[in-house]
């Protein structure tokens, strides 16, 4: 009954643009918590019934996203039944192709995104943050060069079902876990909050 990190594979776009995020997040969860984890992540097709084996799913990409009908139906059922999916804009660009198309698809499939208050339980359920932690990529000259002050979410019964980020955590956490030792503060701590929130709410 270990925690499994699943990366969503969808038919359009570049779903595999951050291949080191799963192992890095799993390393942090194992390092800081008592939660049992599977040492490697899995890849699950968003349009297949296998999606319902993995309640925590990570979805990212740079390119435009167009969900197939099966992907859209699965996403809706997944959220309604209690699944948790993180969608991260790998472009960190609110005027970019991924953001515009992904938010359209999300709205069509499960409803409009709403801003998540920065005092939400997500930011306090393990480590304490005063909002979504800033990434080193937000002002790197690419993307929109904005510090994105908040995350967005689609909720079901008060619980986050889909968490949407323009922070580009896919770039921020896409490195080998062994290199954390060169960081003064581990920048993947917020990923632990995401996992703990998903498991406890």
């Amino acid at each position, binding site marked *: 009954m270990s925690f499994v990190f699943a990366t969503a594979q969808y038919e359009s776009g570049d779903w595999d643009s951050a291949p080191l995020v799963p192992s890095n997040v799993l390393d942090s969860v194992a390092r800081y918590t*008592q939660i049992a984890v599977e040492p490697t992540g899995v890849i699950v097709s968003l349009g297949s019934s296998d999606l319902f084996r993995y309640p925590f799913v990570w979805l990212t990409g740079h390119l435009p996203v167009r969900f197939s009908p099966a992907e859209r139906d699965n996403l809706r059922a997944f959220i309604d039944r209690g699944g948790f999916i993180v969608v991260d804009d790998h472009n960190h660009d609110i005027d970019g192709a991924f953001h515009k198309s992904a938010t359209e698809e999300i709205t069509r499939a499960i409803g409009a995104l709403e801003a998540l208050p920065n005092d939400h339980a997500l930011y306090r359920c393990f480590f304490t943050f005063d909002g979504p932690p800033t990434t080193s990529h937000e002002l790197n000259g690419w993307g929109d060069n904005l510090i994105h002050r908040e995350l967005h979410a689609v909720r079901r019964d008060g619980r986050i079902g889909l968490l949407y980020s323009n922070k580009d955590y896919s770039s921020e956490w896409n490195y080998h876990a062994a290199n954390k030792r060169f960081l003064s503060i581990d920048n993947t701590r917020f990923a632990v909050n995401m996992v703990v929130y998903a498991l406890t709410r």
Partner: protein
Amino acid sequence: MRSRVERIVRTVAWITLAGATGLAWRSPVVPATRAVSSPPSVETLARWALVPPADSLIVTFRGLPGDTMRSQVAAIAGAGIAVQWRDDGVDAQAGEVELDVSTGRGALRVAGGPVEVSDAAGALGVVDGALVVPGLVLPVRAGVVPSAELVPSRRALVLGTPSWESGWIVRGLEAAGWSVEARFVLAPGLVAGPSAIDTATFAVAIVLDRVEPVMARALLAFVRSGGGLVLGPGALGAPVLAQIAPGAVAALARSAASLALPTDRADLAFRPVVRLRADAVALDTARIAARREGQGRVVLIGDVETWRWALASDPGRTAHSAFWVRVVEAARYRPLGDRMAGDPAPRASLVAAFGPPVQAPAPALPRWPWEAMLFVLGMAGLMTEWASRRMRGAV
């Protein structure tokens, strides 16, 4: 002469004002005492278990308190709050039973007003004075059990490490109207959720993983005082809980169907419940067993990863919720209004638990406001002295 009188008046006035200040300063501090209105309700006492405590609690019983009430008051007393009780009719409604075992005939003598006589099938009637009843007449209860005591508590506590199983159990029970709290061990030394458990707050505890020895002992006390305890296979890692479990669990049994998305509970993997204790009852062949421990019940469930059932389909989500409701209903604390009636000496039990009853305080006599009087006199003296000086032209 006049100025000498003025000096005397001024001096006396200042002394009077000082005295008034001193009296006001020494006003007695009323200790924090809260009296629960009579008759106290289960909800009142449950709220008491949650609000910041005062120093003492006075409960007024009108008639014999039920088992729930006694347990809740005892839990509050156990938390270090001085509990006293007032006798407002306990004696008058107490009955005395004499039973001749050889003939099976008993006699009931009522010390005071009418009492309701009932047996397990329901009420037999209301008697006043003495009555010979053929056969067993227990339980006898005073008055009618307050309806609040019959309202089942639907509060549960889930304990373990964060997992999909615990999360879906919480959601499934909440969807069915239960109020659920969770206590998660997030990291070594980091625990989120309630740190104590008692029957005043929770009806049932669901333990999915091994818990620390302190919490295991608390759960043991909880179930023995009437709480319900549901144990998952992982909970048996705690020796204290393994000792009270209805049985043990064998190795994981995974069918071919359990490898696919489950459409039914039968598709789920499970650990068979084996080596049932003599006093245990199998509620579901090989998967669920239960036994009584003290006044509570312990249910051992061999199903693992039932969340897969809930995530697999919409009917599965509904069925998963219904299944867990059935499990906790089988275990949960049920207040039994007639338990205390089986107590041959209910008043003695109350005295043993909470000491002799205290007398209702005599109405306090109105206190003379000495400080106010002295203040007025002092100010009047100062004003008189000041006016006298002004009238004779002095500064």
